């Protein structure tokens, strides 16, 4: 008997969480923009935040953080969606509800991400997650 790796079980839970809550949240968010209902978009953002919370809970259960792949995917998706939002804003076809919805989505995600880093690693630790010293200054230098 080969026990399944805990990482596999964690990945299954993460996949299931995002496949359900992530896509549902995205759908509700888009529906809000389509119907020009800010409150509906806000509900979509809330569901996406819920997916993040579920992700962090799963991480807590398995005593781990976000994997490098998840971080890259998350930041990449954030950047891509941000780019689409900016391009759409420049195009000028957006209503005020669309602006508010987009700003709320990106603002909430950014604030949530920072809050996660600060609470998990502390202010200094959160900074260190992104600041890598050059090799010359490190302990391994001659």
């Amino acid at each position: 008997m080969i026990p399944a790796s805990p990482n596999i079980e964690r990945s299954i839970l993460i996949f299931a969480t995002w496949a359900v809550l992530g896509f549902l949240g995205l759908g509700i968010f888009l529906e809000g923009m389509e119907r020009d209902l800010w409150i509906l978009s806000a509900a979509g953002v809330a569901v996406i935040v819920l997916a993040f919370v579920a992700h962090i809970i799963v991480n807590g259960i398995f005593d781990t953080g976000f994997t490098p792949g998840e971080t890259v995917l998350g930041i990449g998706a954030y950047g891509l969606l941000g780019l689409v939002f900016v391009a759409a804003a420049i195009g000028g076809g957006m209503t005020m509800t669309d602006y508010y919805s987009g700003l709320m989505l990106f603002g909430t995600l950014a604030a949530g991400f920072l809050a996660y880093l600060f609470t998990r690693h502390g202010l200094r630790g959160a900074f260190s997650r992104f600041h890598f010293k050059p090799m010359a200054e490190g302990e391994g230098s001659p």
Partner: protein
Amino acid sequence: MIWLPLYGLFYAAATLYWARVAAGLNGDYRTFFSAGHSLSPWISALVLAGMSLSGWVVLVGSAWIGREGFGLPVLLQAGIAFALPGVFFFKRIWLLGQHFRLSSITELFRSYWESEFLVAVVAVVATIFAIAFAGMQLSAMSGLVVAMTDGAVGAPVAATLLGVVLAGYVIIGGMRAVGYFGAVQAVLGFAAVVGFAGFAVIETGGFAALNAGLARMAADPAAAGKFIVAGVVQFTAGAGREAAAGHEGTALASFSLALALMGLQASPMALKVVLSTREPRGFAAGQTWVMAGAGGALIALCMACLGTAALIDPARSVGGLLASLSPWFGAWLFIGLLAGVQLMAGLALLVAGEALVRHVYKPWFHGALTSHGSVTVTRVVVAVLALVSVLMQQLTPVTLSMLGSLALPLALQLWTPLLGMTWLRWFTRPAVITGVGFGITGVLLTEPFGIAVLSFLGLDLPWGRAPWTIHSAAWGIAANLAVTLLVSAFTRRRGFGDEAREAQRFIETLLRPGPRVRALRSTAWSVALAWLFLAVGPGLVFGNYAFLGPEKAWLLGMPSLWGWSLVFWVAGLGLVWFLSYKMEMASPLTVRIPAYQPPPKLKPDQSAAERTRLVAFLVTVAVGFSLIVLVALAFGH
């Protein structure tokens, strides 16, 4: 529309990701068939519930309610009907599998019953599930793709794409991919069921509006029959021969359909998941809270809402909803539904492939085939089965449907060998084999497939499908049990080999009931029989009027039978909990399972015998085919 292809690409990428992960852990082929018995209990629970519920609930159950109403209230008890066989069998089958270090029900049957006939039956049942039962659902999915793309993607292209994705991850990752990705698919499938029901209720105007619409229908004498069970039984000649008064949804039709549903968790697929599980800790929780609880709620509430919305307005059927929703929601729900269907289909393909190659082809015709060779040939067979299924979906949909309807009743016939191995150890080998043979005959004689084949050969049966409004599953199991009991009485204590005796000793020693269980036995029988009578049996006729007030007003604000079903779903959940935990039928067990050490046996060279067997097989097939053609030409029409 961009959303469906986008979500479809995401789904395909996810399947390939999990196939790759699984293949890596498999070491290419070493644990291809059973995931190294490493599936976590919670993964198994999700996979078992997902394969039983997700596709069926949306595609079959809701469609039936949308067409016929509440005439078969057993549909709303399906969560309990699916859970009960697991309560009876899973723990004991898992223990036997661990003791003998076997990973499929086919191997267990061969070891315990020493019967190649039962091995062949399992292989045939698994193949029917893989090609026809799953094929019917995949065909429905292809139809939805055509509708959602306004015909831009044709049915053959859709069926091929779905088949390629399905076969791809099964071929690459084997049981591990089916298990790991199956857990994700199950969650997606459940979410889709909730989503469909939610949108159906919203589009109808809310739950109150839904019931108001139903009340208007019930007040119409032409549609009032859709809200009642049409008596206990009607002695008709069966569908296609003689129409029932009102409709065919009698109480015995419900009861026999419940038996058919109970076939699913006795199928080789469900038992494959069980035997690939690491430990038996999750069977009680899985059957009670996931299957009967969450799954039962999905069925009794969500499936019912979806079905009744379509009953009021057919435009709110699954297809109608997908067409009317925003494209992102439509695509998401479609992918969820597809995930549920592919979970069942993938598992069926793998089990059928394994049964045909490892348990039929290798031992009968090619004993020298290596483990690596077995996996390779299984992969080829899985691809062929998927191809056959896709071709039948497009070319012979009626045959596919007739074959598919055989799957559940035939799987139910495996109850007698399973009961003999686990509970009723006085069932003898000749009795079980003869019983299964009679059971299969009973099913074939009351199913459209068997009736059509006999008609083709010139023998027109005087009855149609489901005579006396009783499903073929019940006809089959009645014949099966009667013959098994009778032959067992005449062949007592005969026909057991070393492994069977060891299995009996092992189960008896390990699972000897304690005083509390013995004291509760009569209670368990009483409660179970009462539930069967009232929830899925003749007592259903009480449900017609149980919650009706003066002037037939609905006391619960919903149809009386729906309320009755909800009450007995909760009662059924209690029953499953009671049997699982209090009667210890599926309760957790933490003892170490010792491996059985068989007495050493010489393995003679079988190559000559295999060649002879192959020639005999080919000659039998050729002669059988010729005879069928001759009979059809002489008497058929």
